[in-house]
């Protein structure tokens, strides 16, 4: 049962076993397993409930960003370097994701162990991934789903000696519309909206949409989490609609995502003995380049990244100095309106570029960042996201741009456009070295930042981590965190499957506690 904000006319009180804040990959996976385990579960989602059946996914970028994106598509870090991308709807960020579905690599699971995480080892996760992949129909995309940019990536990557692989996709009956980022109009992309949210509801969970949690409440004396206070929002304005909700629960699951969960923590005045709340903000920043071809590419057709290469996923060092790598490299997909926004320049020069959009190609990298930023609250309680590329992450971004340029020229590009303020252009491979010195920091380039993590770090040492490996907060018994906030480092691949797998472990721990 889903109840939307406009249906609520009076203040409400609820008493349940578990209240879950957020309905994305973390919240929905936890809800499904807890409800199937026999607990009464209430999910609270700040965003609205939108469905393909009601025609909500109309593929208009402006409408859809206003519906499903946390910052209506316009949120940035404080220095303007990152475009913050996060969900604000039932199903969370999975509603706009690309459906790339990787398991946490074994090497990264080992690093998590070294960082103090236990109970999430590769062997523990493997059978959970089996189940999640089955539930989301994860499979390699059939070649028919490769757009021209994907084909060029395969051909040129092969000539460069790179191993090009299929990117596992969570799709069922994809119609190749190319509007994945605006939310799937066909229920083909296996987002949480069409998988674990309905599975949780089928098992008896309930969900309130348009419901913003204002505080996690605690028992006086023990400090144990006792529920949440929330208010319903008017979807037309985003402002409080009037009715409020008080929930009493035996356990609280915080699953609002890497950008929002630390904000709820801080607004609730929860303890921060480790000093790590809101710190270690990793974002998987995405540098990208555009290229002009003689043939039509149509970047916005078909699925975004049917293929890619993991050859550079692990960074390579020599004598302690960075050499290359530390990112995934994929063909890029950007919708026409965003291509127009991110192409450099203005006036006649920009209009000339825009007129060539069908012949533009692009490649993108997902930087496995290791220098985190920080989330803080302003005096009015709104969040600030402080993040600047630094250290080896800058070198990774430069190396990723150079590899992209290599691939784009190898695949026949006549010219490359750097999406920087200065409008830098590369006329041929001999100019790639410019990328070694080009200014890319301090807002000179805008990086997409779709995968926030690390802001409520997990680890068994309470002096260095916010939550234990059970997912329960060290300093707030009864409060569990089940989203990428707990990752001690980014997973080095798209995080959706790892978020779900970690949430399954969180749910198992809650079930054993409450039983």
């Amino acid at each position, binding site marked *: 049962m889903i109840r939307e904000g406009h249906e609520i006319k009076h203040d409400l009180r609820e008493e349940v076993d578990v209240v879950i804040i957020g309905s994305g990959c973390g919240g929905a996976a936890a809800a499904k397993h807890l409800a199937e385990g026999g607990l009464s579960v209430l999910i609270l989602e700040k965003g609205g409930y939108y469905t393909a059946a009601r*025609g*909500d*996914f*109309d*593929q*208009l*970028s*402006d*409408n859809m960003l*206003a*519906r499903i994106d946390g*910052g*209506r*598509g*316009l*949120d*940035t870090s*404080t*220095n*303007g*370097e990152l475009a913050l991308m996060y969900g604000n709807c039932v199903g969370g960020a999975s509603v706009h994701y690309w459906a790339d579905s990787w398991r946490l690599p074994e090497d990264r699971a080992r690093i998590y162990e070294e960082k103090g995480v236990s109970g999430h080892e590769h062997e523990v996760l493997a059978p959970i991934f089996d189940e999640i992949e089955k539930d989301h129909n994860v499979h390699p995309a059939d070649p028919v789903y490769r757009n021209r940019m994907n084909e060029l990536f395969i051909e040129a990557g092969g000539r460069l000696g790179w191993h090009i692989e299929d990117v596992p996709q969570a799709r069922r009956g994809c119609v190749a*519309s190319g*509007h994945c980022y605006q939310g799937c*109009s066909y229920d083909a992309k296996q987002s949480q909206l069409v998988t674990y949210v309905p599975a949780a509801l089928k098992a008896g969970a309930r969900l309130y949409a348009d419901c913003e949690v204002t505080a996690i409440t605690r028992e006086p004396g023990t400090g144990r989490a006792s529920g949440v206070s929330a208010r319903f929002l008017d*979807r*037309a*304005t*985003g402002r409080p609609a009037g009715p409020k909700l008080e929930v009493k629960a035996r356990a609280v699951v915080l699953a609002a995502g890497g950008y929002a969960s630390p904000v709820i923590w801080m607004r609730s005045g929860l303890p921060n003995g480790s000093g790590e709340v809101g710190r270690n903000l990793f974002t998987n920043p995405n540098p990208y380049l555009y290229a002009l071809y003689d043939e039509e590419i*149509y970047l*916005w057709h078909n699925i975004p990244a049917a293929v890619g290469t993991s050859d550079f996923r692990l960074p390579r060092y020599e004598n302690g100095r960075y050499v290359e790598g530390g990112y995934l490299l994929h063909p890029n997909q950007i919708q*026409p*309106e*965003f*291509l*127009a*926004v991110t192409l450099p320049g*203005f*006036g*006649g020069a*920009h*209009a000339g570029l*825009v*007129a060539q*959009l*069908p012949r533009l190609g692009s490649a993108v990298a997902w930087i496995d960042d290791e220098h985190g930023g*920080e989330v803080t609250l*302003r005096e009015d309680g*709104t*969040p600030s996201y*402080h*993040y*600047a590329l630094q250290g080896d992450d800058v070198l990774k971004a430069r190396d990723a741009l150079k590899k992209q340029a290599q691939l784009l020229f190898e695949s026949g590009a006549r010219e490359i456009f750097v999406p920087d*303020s*200065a*409008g830098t252009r590369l006329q041929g491979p001999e100019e790639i070295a410019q990328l070694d010195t080009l200014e890319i*920091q*301090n*807002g*000179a380039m*805008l990086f997409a930042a779709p995968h926030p993590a690390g802001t409520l770090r997990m680890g068994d040492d309470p002096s260095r981590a916010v939550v234990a490996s059970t997912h329960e907060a060290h300093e707030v018994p009864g409060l569990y965190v089940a989203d990428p906030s707990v990752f001690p480092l980014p997973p080095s691949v798209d995080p959706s499957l790892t978020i779900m797998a970690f949430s399954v472990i969180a749910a198992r721990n809650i079930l054993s506690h409450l039983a």
Partner: protein
Amino acid sequence: MTRQATGPSRRGFLMLGGAAAASAAIMGLAGIAAPGGEHYGALLNGEVPQVLSEKELAVLSVAAETLVGPIPGLPSIYETRTPARIDRELSLSRGTLLSDMKASLLYLEYSPLMGISLSRFSSMGAQEREAHLRALSRSEDPLERAIYNGVRFLVFFFYYTDPRTWAHLGYEGPQMPAKFFPAGNRIENLEALS
């Protein structure tokens, strides 16, 4: 006028504090009193701002006109109501986007007076405005780049989400019928308000 660049991690999105302070200083140095209401009113093209002031919407309109430029066969930024849609979006945004944009527009209007120009941005000729925006885009000062990028992003996004521009982009458009969204920022939303 130069500003010492500090670490970027504590600045606002458009570095509100720096932009507002710099603009105020320029206004003071130039002895600028109250803005000419008639001058700005004539630039509004009949739009009534929701959260920006008339002066801010006027400066935004001039900036949008310069950024998009005249493109044969495409509607103007006034026909697409791009400035009004941005104003509408700012009315729905939370956080500092509105205050950042206000500070940016103020800076944009008065920053030409820091150089050799004797005109405010909105009074400049087309070529002068282009040169000023180009200078901001290539500035070594992150503050000026952020102002350029912030205004530019909103202008291009709201201009090119108008369906009348899509043929120019080679975009076939959605494969689904549009559905009115009360919290949207399309022209239909502006019409619903009026």
